[in-house]
């Protein structure tokens, strides 16, 4: 969904929940107890508010976030400089690869940015080289070396 909610769709408590619950829930019998106490509401209301936030589309997901690399998968951000006249042709051949998970057009000389997702690390190079051969263009590879996660905050 790319629509913006009206500014009064969320109250202070909703904003607090959105900010706090991005950081990770304790894995315990009553995981909402601490945030409920901070917000000054019962745990059942925390749950009802999350349900509502999901219904109105303020949040996309609530649950475990998996690290595919820790499960043995491999990811790599890649970029190509595609000549304007060949953009659709190259897009079609790139998107045809099942390893291509996302692909974005961006305003830059490097105008095609995609993520390769493979089950094993060695398959990243194979997929990138296949795309290079098919497109006749260099695939620059930007594997993640370090990730800094804090999340995104709404103004409380």
């Amino acid at each position, binding site marked *: 969904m790319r629509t913006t909610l009206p500014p009064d769709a969320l109250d202070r408590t909703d904003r607090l929940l959105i900010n706090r619950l991005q950081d990770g829930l304790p894995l315990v019998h009553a995981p909402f107890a601490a945030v409920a106490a901070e917000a000054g509401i019962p745990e059942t209301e925390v749950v009802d508010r999350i349900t509502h936030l999901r219904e109105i589309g303020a949040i996309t997901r609530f649950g*475990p976030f998996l690290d595919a690399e820790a499960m043995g998968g491999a990811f790599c951000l890649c970029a190509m400089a595609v000549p304007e006249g060949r953009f659709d042709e190259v897009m079609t051949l790139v*998107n045809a690869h099942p390893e291509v998970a996302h692909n974005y057009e961006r305003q830059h000389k490097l105008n095609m*940015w995609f993520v390769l997702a493979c089950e094993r690390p060695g398959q990243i190079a194979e997929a990138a080289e296949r795309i290079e051969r098919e497109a006749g263009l260099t695939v620059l590879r930007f594997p993640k070396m370090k990730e800094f996660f*804090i999340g995104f905050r709404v103004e409380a």
Partner: protein
Amino acid sequence: MTPPATLDATDRRILKATASGLPLTPHPFEEVARWLFLPENEVIARMQAMQDDGVIRRVALAPNHYALGMAANGMSVWDLDDARSEALGAQVGALPFVSHCYLRPRALPDWPYNLFAMLHGQSRDEVEAKRLEVAALLGPACRTNDILYSTRILKKSGMRLAGEG
């Protein structure tokens, strides 16, 4: 690189049961346990072990940036002094309007940038103002920067779970 964590069939059942989200009740792990005919303490212990191994990064909420008014976003990229890139990357990642922040290798000569930070704002002007804030934070440790706006999503498919059972 650490070897992939080994998951058994029960771990995979837990991941599969929660793949579309945790049940929204005050005791979600008790509910998952009920679905799977497992004791709640086993579900919790296994999820904790998977989190300790890094298979589960966290159990959390994902905001919808667009719905929350952050309609504009750009991939900002920075050429940081290598000696300071880890410390400065952590500071950029901690900014409230940055959602993803990574160190990546440069691809010289075409691509001098080693820090990637996704900036969010209500408009492109606001994103540009935030880019200036990041530039001020980095100071002379950053040689040059750029920002790439996405103009089209060409493909978006979900993450495939390797060996999902």
